[in-house]
C-alpha cells in the first residue's frame, strides 16, 4: 500500500493525469460549447476518431506533422459541417445525426485505413510523424510545476491555450452571451434580434475544432499509430462530463479532471494483484457517484427555490 501511495504522490503520476486529461478535456469542451448553443453534439467520439486517423494520414502524405495536424482539423471541421447541414439547415434531430456520424466514422476510418495501408487494424506500416515534446526552459527546473507544464506533447499546450480562449469567448464576449441565449431559449433569442442559426453554426464549428484537436492528440505524440476504434469511449466520457457540468464551464472542467484522475488511479491500481473487474469500474463508479451528488444538490436547490 505504501508503494502505491508513493506512486500516487509522485510527479510522474501528475503528468500521467495530464496525459489522460487532455483528450477528455477536448471532448468535454467540444460537447460543452455545442450544447451551450443548443445543439447537443454527440458525434464527439466519431469526430475524434476521424481526426486521429487523418492526423496520421496527413503527416504521412505531407511528411510534416504540422500539415498533418491541419489536415486532421480539416477532417474534424468537415464532420462538424455535416452536423450543421443536417441539423440547422435541414432540421434533423441532432441526436440522430450524431449517432449516424459516430457509426459512419467507426467504419469509414477502417475503410480508409484499408485503402491506404491495406490493413484493417492499425496504421503501423505508415511512416507517420509526430509533433515534438515541448520542454519549457524555466519551468522544467521547478518541481511539481514541471510535471504539469513541461515535457508534455505539443497539443497539451494547445489544449491549455484553447481552454483560456474558450473561457474568454464564453464569458467575456457578446458572441458567448448569444450562444447561451440561443441555447436557453431559441425564440426569445430570435425576438431579441440574435441570428440564432449563425451563432449555432459558429458553436458547432468550434465544437468540431476542439474534438478534432482531441483526436489529433491521440496520434501525434501521445501515440504515433492509429489503431481501429482507438478513442475507446473518450468522447462519450467527455459528453458525460458535459452533462454533469451543464452550462458551467468550470464545472465541466472539474468533472473531466476528476474522471481522468480516476482513470490514472485505475492504471496504477491495475498493476497490483487486485481483481481487474473491480479496478476497471473505478472511473465509472466515480462518474455515477458524481452524478448522484450532482442530482441530489440540484434537487435540494430546486426545493429551496
Amino acid at each position, binding site marked *: 500500500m505504501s*508503494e502505491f501511495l508513493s*506512486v500516487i504522490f509522485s510527479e*510522474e503520476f501528475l503528468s*500521467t493525469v495530464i*496525459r*489522460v486529461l487532455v*483528450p477528455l478535456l477536448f471532448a468535454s469542451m467540444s460537447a460543452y460549447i455545442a450544447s451551450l448553443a443548443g445543439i447537443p453534439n454527440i458525434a464527439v467520439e466519431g469526430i475524434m476518431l476521424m481526426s486521429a486517423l487523418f492526423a496520421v494520414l496527413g503527416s504521412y502524405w505531407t511528411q510534416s506533422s504540422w500539415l498533418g495536424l491541419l489536415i486532421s482539423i480539416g477532417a474534424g471541421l468537415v464532420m462538424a459541417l455535416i452536423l450543421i447541414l443536417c441539423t440547422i439547415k435541414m432540421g434533423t434531430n441532432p441526436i440522430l445525426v450524431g449517432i449516424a456520424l459516430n457509426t459512419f466514422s467507426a467504419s469509414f476510418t477502417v475503410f480508409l*485505413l*484499408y485503402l491506404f495501408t491495406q*490493413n*484493417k*487494424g*492499425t*496504421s*503501423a*506500416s*505508415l*511512416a*507517420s510523424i509526430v509533433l515534438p515534446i515541448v520542454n519549457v526552459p524555466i519551468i522544467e527546473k521547478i518541481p511539481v510545476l514541471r510535471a504539469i507544464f513541461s515535457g508534455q506533447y505539443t497539443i497539451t499546450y494547445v489544449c491549455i491555450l484553447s481552454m483560456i480562449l474558450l473561457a474568454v469567448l464564453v464569458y467575456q464576449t457578446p458572441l458567448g452571451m448569444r450562444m447561451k441565449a440561443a441555447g436557453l431559449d431559441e425564440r426569445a433569442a430570435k425576438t431579441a434580434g440574435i441570428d440564432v442559426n449563425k451563432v449555432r453554426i459558429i458553436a458547432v464549428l468550434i465544437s468540431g475544432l476542439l474534438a478534432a484537436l482531441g483526436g489529433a492528440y*491521440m496520434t501525434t505524440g*501521445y*501515440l*504515433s*499509430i492509429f*489503431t*481501429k*476504434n*482507438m478513442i*475507446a469511449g473518450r468522447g462519450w466520457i467527455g459528453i458525460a462530463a458535459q452533462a454533469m457540468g451543464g452550462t458551467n464551464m468550470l464545472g465541466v472542467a472539474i468533472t473531466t479532471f476528476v474522471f481522468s484522475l480516476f482513470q*490514472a488511479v485505475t*492504471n*496504477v491500481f*491495475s*498493476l*497490483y*494483484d487486485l*481483481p*481487474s*473487474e473491480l*479496478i*476497471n469500474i473505478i472511473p465509472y463508479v466515480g462518474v455515477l457517484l458524481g452524478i448522484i451528488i450532482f442530482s441530489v444538490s440540484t434537487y435540494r436547490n430546486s426545493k429551496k427555490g
Partner: protein
Amino acid sequence: MKKIITVILVLMMALGMFACVATTAPATEEPPAEATAAAEQTEATEAPAAEKIYKVAVLVPFIGDQSYFDSVNAGRLAVEDYPNVETTLIEMGEDKSKWESYYLDACEGGYDLIVGGNNDAEEYFYAAAKQYPDQKFFNFDYVNHVELPNVFAVTYNTPELGYVAGTAASLITQSSMPKANAEKIVGIVVGMDFPAMNDFVSGFCQICYENGVQVLIGYPESFTDSAKAKEIALNMYAQGADVVWQVAGGAGLGVFEAAAEADKYAFGVDSDQTIALSGQPNLAATIVTSFYKDCGASVKYAVDMLIAGTYPTGAKTLGIKEGAVGLIQNQQYIDMVPQEIRDQIDAQVAKVAAGEVTVISALADDAAWQDIKAKATAPLN
C-alpha cells in the same frame, strides 16, 4: 389522422414484404448454386483427369490485426497457392449477433471444409457443425471443444509459450544488456482478464517466480485502447520493469510506444511484430523478439489432411514440440541478445519440447494459476 395511420400501415406492410423477400431471396438462389457445385463435383469424379477442386472457407471476424487473425489468413493464402484448392475469406465483422448466420450461410455454400472457431466464435461454430453433420469443420484454436464426428480442432500450448517468454524476460532483466536495470522486475500487458488470455500469463509467472523475478500484470480490458495499454506499460517501466510482453492485440501497440518512450525492451506476440511496425522503426527497435502462435500452419495442416483424404476428427494440442508456438529468431533478436542468453533460452525451449517441464495452465487449473499469480506478483524483499 386516420389517413396518416393507413399510410403508415401500408408502408409497414410493404416494408415487411421487402424484409421477407430479402431473407428468402438467398435461400431460393442458393439451391441452384449448390446444384451446379454438386454437378461440378460429380463431373470431377467422373473424369479422373480433372482434379477435384477443394473449396475452403475461412471465417474470422476481421483481418488486419497484425497478429492473430492475420496469421490465420496467412495459412489461407499458403493453401490458396495449391493448384487444387480454392479459398474464400469471410470476414464476419465484430457484431456477434450476425456470426451465426455467417456460419450457416457458409454451410450452405458447398465448401469442402469450413475453417473457423476460436474462443469468441466457438458457440456458433459448434452449433453449425451440429446442424450440418456432413460438412467438415476445422477449429483453428479451440477453448471448449465439443466432440463431433465432423469436427477437427486444434489448440496451442499457450502456457508453454508464456513459459518461454518468461524465460527470456527473466534472463534479460537479470542480464547486463544496455537497457536492463538492477531491479528484477518484468511486466506483461494482457488484453482482458479471462482464462484463455491468462493462459499466456500462467507459464510466464511460473518461470519468473522460479528465477526470482517479480511480475507486474496489467489488464487494459480492451483490445483496441492502445492509449490505456501505453499508460499501464509506462507505469510498469516506472516501477522498474525493463521488459514488458504485450498480449493485447491492437491495444498492445501502445506497449511498444511506452517502451520507446521509456527506452526499455518489449516483446511482441502472435507473429513477428517488427515486420508489422515497418513504418515506425523507433517502435520496432524496442522489440527483442515476438512469441508466436502459428495458427496459419495449422490451417495448412488441416487442408493438407483434407486433400490426402485422411481428415481427422477430435482435438489436438500443438506446442513447442510441434513448432506451433515459439519465438522469432530474426536478425534483430540475434543483434540485441547476447549469445549466452540465447543459448540459455534455447536450452529451456529444448527442455519444454522434451516434456521435462510441467507448465501451469490458467485454463486447466485455476487454483494453481491463482497461486502462482499471487506468488509471482508479490514484491521482492
